[in-house]
C-alpha cells in the first residue's frame, strides 16, 4: 500500500459524497422528480475499498444505492449525473436510475432488492466457463440478505466454485428496520458456513480494511478457489432515500454514526500520519467540487431523450 493509493481512496470517497450531494440538491430544488436519490453517505469506504481490489474485466453488480461503486470504478461523473437528470447523454440514455457502464464492468441493477445477486453469480459462471481469471462482485445490503435470492446464489456459488464475491454492505438499516430486528444471528457473515463458503466481517468504514478483505477474496477467486462472503459493517448517515427525515433514529445514534464517517476517519488518519496536509486536502476538495460542478452543468445542458426513443433498446 502506498501513499498514492491512500490518497486515491480518500479522493474517491470524497467524489462519491459530493456527487451524491449534488444529486440530492437537484432533487430538493425540484430539478428532478420521481424516485428520490439513494445516497451512500457514510458508506463510501465500502465501494472505494472494494473496487480498488478489482481490475478491468471484473464486474460489479450494484444495488439501488449504486452511485458509490460507479464512481469507484471510474465512471464519468458527467454521464452518471446526466442519467440521474434523465438525459439522453446519460449512460443508460435516460432509461433507468441504475447507471450501467458495461465497458467498465458496472451493471446497474437494484430496482428489485437482491435481484442483482443471482445475475452476478451468472456472470461469474461465464467468467469461469470462459477460462478467464476475472471475477464478479455482487453488492447487497443487510436487508437484501434476507431475500431467498441471496441464499440460493450463495449455495450455487459454493457448489460450482464460482469466482464471486458476495459483498454485504451492512449499513444497519433496511429502510426503517434496524438489522438487529431483522436478523437474530450474530452476523450475516455467519450464514456462509451453512454453504461451505469462507467469510469475513470487516470494518466497512475503513477503505483499507475493506480493500484487504476483498483483495484476499479476489485472489482466491482468481486462483479457482471460489466464492467468499464479506460483510462490511458500515453506517448509513442519511435517510433511506434523500427525502427520508429518519424520524426513527435518535440524535445520539446519528451523532455516533457521524463519528464513523469514513471520510473524516481517513482524512484525520492521513493528516495524523503526515501523508496529507490541510492544504492538500483543500486542493483535493476543490478539485472534486470542480468535477461535480462540471457534471451537474453537463447534465443540465444535455437534452432529454425524444419520446420515440422510448421504443428503442428493448430487443437485441
Amino acid at each position, binding site marked *: 500500500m502506498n501513499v498514492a493509493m491512500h490518497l486515491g481512496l480518500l479522493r474517491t470517497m470524497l467524489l462519491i459524497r459530493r456527487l451524491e450531494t449534488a444529486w440530492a440538491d437537484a432533487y430538493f430544488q425540484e430539478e428532478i422528480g420521481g424516485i428520490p436519490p439513494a445516497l451512500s453517505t457514510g458508506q463510501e469506504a465500502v465501494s472505494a475499498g472494494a473496487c480498488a481490489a478489482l481490475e478491468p474485466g471484473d464486474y460489479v453488480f450494484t444495488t439501488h444505492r449504486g452511485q458509490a461503486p460507479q464512481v469507484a470504478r471510474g465512471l464519468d461523473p458527467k454521464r452518471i449525473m446526466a442519467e440521474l437528470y434523465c438525459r439522453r447523454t446519460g449512460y443508460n440514455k435516460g432509461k433507468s436510475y441504475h447507471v450501467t457502464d458495461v465497458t467498465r464492468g458496472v451493471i446497474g441493477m437494484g430496482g*428489485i432488492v*437482491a435481484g442483482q445477486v443471482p445475475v452476478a453469480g451468472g456472470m461469474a459462471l461465464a467468467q469461469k466457463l470462459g477460462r478467464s481469471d476475472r471475477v464478479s462482485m455482487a453488492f447487497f445490503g443487510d436487508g437484501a440478505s434476507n431475500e431467498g435470492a441471496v441464499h440460493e446464489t450463495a449455495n450455487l456459488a459454493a457448489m460450482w466454485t464460482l469466482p464471486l464475491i458476495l459483498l454485504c454492505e451492512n449499513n444497519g438499516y433496511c429502510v426503517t428496520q434496524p438489522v438487529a430486528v431483522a436478523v437474530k444471528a450474530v452476523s450475516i457473515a455467519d450464514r456462509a458456513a451453512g454453504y461451505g463458503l469462507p467469510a469475513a466481517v470487516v470494518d466497512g468504514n475503513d477503505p483499507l480494511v475493506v480493500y484487504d478483505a476483498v483483495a484476499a477474496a479476489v485472489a482466491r477467486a482468481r486462483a479457482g478457489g471460489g466464492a467468499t462472503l464479506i460483510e462490511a459493517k458500515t453506517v448509513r448517515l442519511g435517510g433511506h432515500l434523500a427525502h427520508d427525515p429518519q424520524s*426513527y433514529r435518535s440524535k445520539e445514534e446519528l451523532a455516533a454514526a457521524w463519528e464513523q464517517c469514513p471520510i473524516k476517519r481517513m482524512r484525520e488518519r492521513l493528516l495524523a500520519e503526515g501523508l496529507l496536509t490541510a492544504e492538500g486536502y483543500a486542493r483535493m476538495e476543490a478539485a472534486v467540487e470542480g468535477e461535480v460542478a462540471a457534471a451537474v452543468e453537463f447534465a443540465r445542458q444535455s437534452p432529454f431523450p425524444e419520446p420515440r426513443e422510448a421504443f428503442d433498446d428493448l430487443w437485441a
Partner: protein
Amino acid sequence: MFDRRLFRPGGPVPQREREWPSFRGAINEAMREEMRRDPAVFQMGEDIAGASPFGVTARLVTEFGTERVRDTPCSEVAVVGAAVGAAMGGMRPIVEFQFGDFLSVAIDQLTHQAAMLRYLTGGQVKVPIVIRLPCGGGQGAGSQHSQSLYSWFAHAPGIKVALPATSMDAKGLMKSAIRDDNPVLFFEHKALYRTRWPAPAEFRDPNHVIPFGRAAVRRIGDDLTVVATLTMVHHALAAAEALAKEGVSVEVIDPRTLVPLDTETIIQSVRKTGRLLAVDEAYLTCGIQGEVIALVTEHAFQALKVAPRRLGNPGVPVPFAPPLEDAVLPDQERITSAIRDMVSA
C-alpha cells in the same frame, strides 16, 4: 393531470377539496375500521409500522400495536406465505408491498398457494388475504416500480382483483376486500394517493361497503363507451368533458373490480353506444383492454358500429425519464383523439 412528485409532501389543499377525503386516507380508514371490527385482521409489510413510503398505514400502529401492524424483513416469499398460512389459521392478513412490482418475487405463493389451496383441498380451507399493491406509472419511478400487472392476476384463477379510482371506492372496496374469504389483490395507483375526491355521506359509515363485481358508470353518454380503470378513469372523464363541447357524448365505465368483472354493465353500455374504447396503463398484449374487447365482441357483436379500440402501454418497460414515460402511457389527449377517430369513422 397527476404530478410526478412521488414521495414529496403535497402542497396546500385547494379550498374546495378540504372536505373531500384523500385517497390514501380512505384506505387507511377502511383498514382501521375493519381492524376495530374484527380482531382477526392484521397487517404485514416492510416499514408499515413507522413510515411506509406512501403513508397508507399511518398511525395504525399507535392504535393496534406492533403485533397487528407487523414490520417484516425483506423476505416477500416468506411474508406472502405467512399470510396464506395465517389466513388458513383463521386470521385475515393484509400485506403491503412497497411497490406492487415486487410481488414478482413471490408469484408462486400467490398463484399456486393462496389462490389454489382451497380448490386443491376440495374446499377444506379458505385463504382470506388482501395484498396491497401500489401500481402505475407517470411517477418517474422507473421500469420496476411502475407496472400495472393486474392482467396477470385476472388470468390466474382464484384471485380477486380490485382497482379503486376514487376515495369512496378505495374505502368501500377495501372493506369488501378485507371481508372477502378469498385472496384479493388491491391495486393502488401511486398517482392517486394524494388526490381527494368528493364522497357521499355513507363514506363515514363504517358499515358501508362497495360490493365486488359492480361497475360504476362514471358518466352517461350515447356515442361511445370508454372502459377505464384507476387514473385512466379520470383521464377519460376529462376527455369526455372536452368532447362534450364538440357534441360527442361519451359514457365512462369504471369496472372497479376485474375479478369479478361486471361484464353485464359494460355490454349494456356498448349495446347502447355501439362503440368501445378500452383504456388502461397495462401492457396491451394479453392485457385487460383486450379482454374487455373480446368479451364485448363475443357478447354484443351485433351492437358494434365500428371496430373497438384499446389504449395502453404498447409493450416496453415504463422508462425512467419523464418524456419517455409520457410517450408510453395513455393520457387524456390520446383518449380524446382515439374517440374522435372512432366517432367520425
